């Protein structure tokens, strides 16, 4: 029983990660109709925002410690961070400890800016081009972004820990009168996702912004003839999508140490989630994200793996195939979006 509850929690948690990544993608891909292979790269850049903030906070000067030796036998240079020397070890230590949450504050403007630049500089010319061309250009961009990050940060994962106060486990089972321990940061991630998803939903639902962008997608020219500057709205949409991707990345770093190709790892999966959810549907993408997350969590249970070996490796694809064959436009897709 506990095992099942735990897997449901895992599923929700995985699902919230998938949903958040897919949400950003569906804004660009499902709504603006751009097959954005660089979305994974945006996610990755978000994660590296956290790495960078951590590095900046850890910027340090060297003090030679004669009592210790380094690997070549020379006196050891001990590093002392500026932050700690400015704010004192107590306060400074706390600031460094909270690097990931602090990174969120920096990541939002940075990601929005990256989104704007990407859209204005490149993607803008590709709305009317074929999907094939969009794939080529965004894939090229993804490679470039990835290689740039690799050039500066290397290929190995870089550990980025959550704040001390938010690591460790909490007893979620207390709610049900049992004991189920679950990592605190994952719970934080889940609620963070829910807040972001809710925020984006209400923005697109309670304002006309979403409708206008959808209309612009269907027929840019006519929307322009109605006096609407659709270009600007597309840019904003792109900025939002980039920010969502980036935030997903920042928050993900304590769960898994980021590396330069983490975006590519998630890319295919996020396309699958978006399409299974149905093109052009935000709720669809979120629903599909949670659904696939939960199914994946269950498929990796020993009880299931023992009579369906390897099912956890293909469960997502199997489910995707079944859904797409039974529901022509995924879970909640809109008619006519990218069907030709």
């Amino acid at each position: 029983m506990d095992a099942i509850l735990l897997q449901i929690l895992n599923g929700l948690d995985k699902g919230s990660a998938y949903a958040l990544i897919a949400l950003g993608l569906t804004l660009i891909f499902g709504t603006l109709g751009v097959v954005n292979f660089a979305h994974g790269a945006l996610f990755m850049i978000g994660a590296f925002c956290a790495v960078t903030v951590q590095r900046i906070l850890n910027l340090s000067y060297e003090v030679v410690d004669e009592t210790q030796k380094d690997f070549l036998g020379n006196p050891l240079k001990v590093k002392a961070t500026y932050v700690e020397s400015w704010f004192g070890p107590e306060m400074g230590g706390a600031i460094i400890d909270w690097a990931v949450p602090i990174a969120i504050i920096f990541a939002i403007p940075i990601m929005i800016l990256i989104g704007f630049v990407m859209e204005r500089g490149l993607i803008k010319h590709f709305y009317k081009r074929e999907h094939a061309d969009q794939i080529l250009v965004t894939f090229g961009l993804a490679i470039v972004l990835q290689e740039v990050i690799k050039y500066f940060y290397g290929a190995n994962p870089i550990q980025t820990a959550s704040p001390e106060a938010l690591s460790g486990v909490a007893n979620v089972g207390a709610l049900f009168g049992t004991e189920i321990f679950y990592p605190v940061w994952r719970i934080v991630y889940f609620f963070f996702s829910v807040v972001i998803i809710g925020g984006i939903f209400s923005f697109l639902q309670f304002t006309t912004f979403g409708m206008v962008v959808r209309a612009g997608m269907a027929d840019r020219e006519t929307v322009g003839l109605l006096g609407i500057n659709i270009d600007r709205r597309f840019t904003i949409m792109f900025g939002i999508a980039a920010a969502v991707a980036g935030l997903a990345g920042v928050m993900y770093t304590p769960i898994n140490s980021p590396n330069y190709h983490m975006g590519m790892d998630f890319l295919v999966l996020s396309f699958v989630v978006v399409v299974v959810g149905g093109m052009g549907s935000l709720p669809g993408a979120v629903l599909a994200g949670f659904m696939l997350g939960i199914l994946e969590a269950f498929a990796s249970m020993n009880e299931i793996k023992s009579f369906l070996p390897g099912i956890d490796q293909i469960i997502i694809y199997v489910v995707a195939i079944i859904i797409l064959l039974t529901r022509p436009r995924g879970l909640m897709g809109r008619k006519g979006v990218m069907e030709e």
Partner: protein
Amino acid sequence: MFGLDKKDTRMLLVVAILTLCAPFILNPFPTDSAMAQFNAGYPDLMQRFVIFGIFAIGFNILFGLTGYLSFGHAAFLGVGSYSAVWMFKLLSMNVVPAILLAVVISGLFALLIGFVSLRRSGIYFSILTLAFAQMSFNLAYSVLTPITNGETGLQLTLDDPRVLGVSATADGSIPVTSLFGLEMRSTFEMVVGPWAFQFNAGYYLCALVLLAAFYLSIRIFRSPFGMMLRAVKSNQQRMNYTGLNTKPYTLAAFVISGMYAGLAGGLMASMDPLAGAERMQWTASGEVVLMTILGGAGTLIGPVLGAGFIKYFENIFSKINDTVLHNWFNFMPDGLEDFVVFIVHPFIGKGWHLTLGILFMLVVVFLPGGLVEGGQRIAKWVKGRKDKDDSSSATKTPAE
């Protein structure tokens, strides 16, 4: 000639000459010069050029004509490779049965996947094919290891049965692939002054197959069937109300292109009898998509160009390292040399991906029709300089 019109015949001849003379064309630099690094005329890479050319030509029959973007074509290539290697393990080292089986099995596999996937169109179709291919890849990598030998890839061993051949040669090694006794790896080297040119049996087999595949694809493009496929891409609704059943058309295109992929996979295994699961991964499927678009989707020659372009980078650029750079630039003063090497360094060797990414972007931005358009622009420019008053360019002919 060959039932083709003049333009197509000319193109076929050009391709024939290029592939048959590739050992010369691809080795323009003397072996000992600093530029020898850029020579691509060695058997393995030449084989890769044509094999991936075949793969891309086949992909283009589906994508270029019908607009259905399959993201799982590598699965057929993988299936072809596995079938061929199994043939080498069980039957004999002759490449003919291996290639035939590769084509047949991948055709059947394509029939199955196509039949299901083609129930949807657009992005939904793409994701279905992707899902099937990723499933195949994941299973091949793990659960199906008895058939695929997992991560290592299916290899020949000394104790394979090979009922029509020998398990091991007299001196205790694994026999090599051959065409009725002509070993695929046999290479004749011709040394002309400082140049060395390699003529490899396997390459010429691949080249001939490429020419046949290319010829067939021209016929398909110019046939009523090809026209129907373009019509499907243009307006399915009209097709249906014109009394045509689009499903068999797209399915036939899917199967044909799957068989091309299987052919490529079979050839690949014939040149180098190993079949790795990564051949089926989505990145491999993505690669053929990129090749086709980069070269020019829907054109005849484009996919071959795209395939060559990407493979060249993968194999040549990735092998340039700092030492090589220092060799090239050592005519410069030391400081400048270091500086130049420092600037170029991120783009070569392990940075070859970066260069490739930048080139992808440059090509799509500046040559919307892919490399073929680049060629056309050059041709037009040359022609335009020859006769300035040729104004017939206004009508847009379907590119080749």
